[in-house]
């Protein structure tokens, strides 16, 4: 069982690059799908595109964590969560890249949706200055 992850960004490149990073850190052991840009592939968000990624990320049926970058990504993610059956989708309150990496590690080691969601949120406490 693996929880899926969908990266909801305004920018296709940002979503794809983050997915690539997560895959490299988990040796491909997680289903992480980018959903970036509007329906024209320009900057923006597209709920149908996100929904499509969600369906593919949920192939195992173990649920999907949506990780949004900012603004309309957050709103679109919330909207889908309201629309779909409870338990299938969860929203990550997390920094985009750091949360995606943490969620990817948790998912690739078999965490369930609540565990993966909590791992993403934990990433708010990462720090990058010398310690």
């Amino acid at each position, binding site marked *: 069982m693996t929880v899926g992850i969908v990266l909801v960004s305004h920018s296709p490149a940002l979503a794809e690059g983050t997915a690539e990073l997560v895959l490299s850190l988990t040796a491909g052991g997680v289903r992480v799908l980018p959903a970036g840009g*509007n*329906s*024209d592939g*320009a*900057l*923006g*968000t*597209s*709920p*149908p595109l996100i929904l499509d990624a969600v369906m593919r990320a949920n192939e195992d049926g173990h649920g999907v964590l949506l990780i949004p970058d*900012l*603004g*309309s990504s957050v*709103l*679109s993610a*919330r*909207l889908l969560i*309201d629309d779909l059956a409870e338990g299938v989708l969860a929203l990550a309150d997390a920094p985009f890249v750091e949360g995606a990496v943490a969620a990817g590690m948790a998912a690739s080691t078999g965490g369930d949706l609540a565990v993966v969601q909590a791992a993403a949120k934990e990433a708010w406490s990462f720090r990058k200055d010398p310690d």
Partner: protein
Amino acid sequence: MMDAARTRAWLTAAARLINANSGHLTALDTAIGDGDHGLNLRRGFEAVTAEATGDTPGAVLKAAGNALIDATGGASGPLYGTFFRRAAKALGDAPEVDDAVFAQALAAGLAGVQTLGGAAEGDKTMVDALAPAVTAFAAGGDAAAAAANGRDATESMTARKGRASYLGERSIGHIDPGAASAALLFQALCSVTTD
């Protein structure tokens, strides 16, 4: 009284106003956002015009909400989409509703926007135009004027939601683009109800 035809007339009038003012909406969004609000809503309301059909006000508004969510491509898409979908849900499948029932549906739409976006009045968003307009409509007052006043009042506010909130106090002095488009929606609504 609202039926399917008049509901559709509202949306068509709104699409026309959005189209005519899209440059202005984009200019407002360039000042305190990313400069796409006019383009977003033009795309969104084009889809509404094409897809928002049905036999009841509820069916028309539901289709409009879905079209906006699918096509808009910015924060205003999920927000206006939710506005129409929640209103549609409140209307159920009544083929015709009186103004009091329609007012309740608009209030449900507003509540949906606030739940989804977390914005209160005073946060310098579309809510600042929608909220007074919904109240005025329920009281039989001039909803279009109330929305326009609400829009103008956003000029002196500090943005606390949406992209403009990154600017903090530097957002003061600019009208919120979403409040401006909300005023157009109510201008359109009044154009089809006051006759």
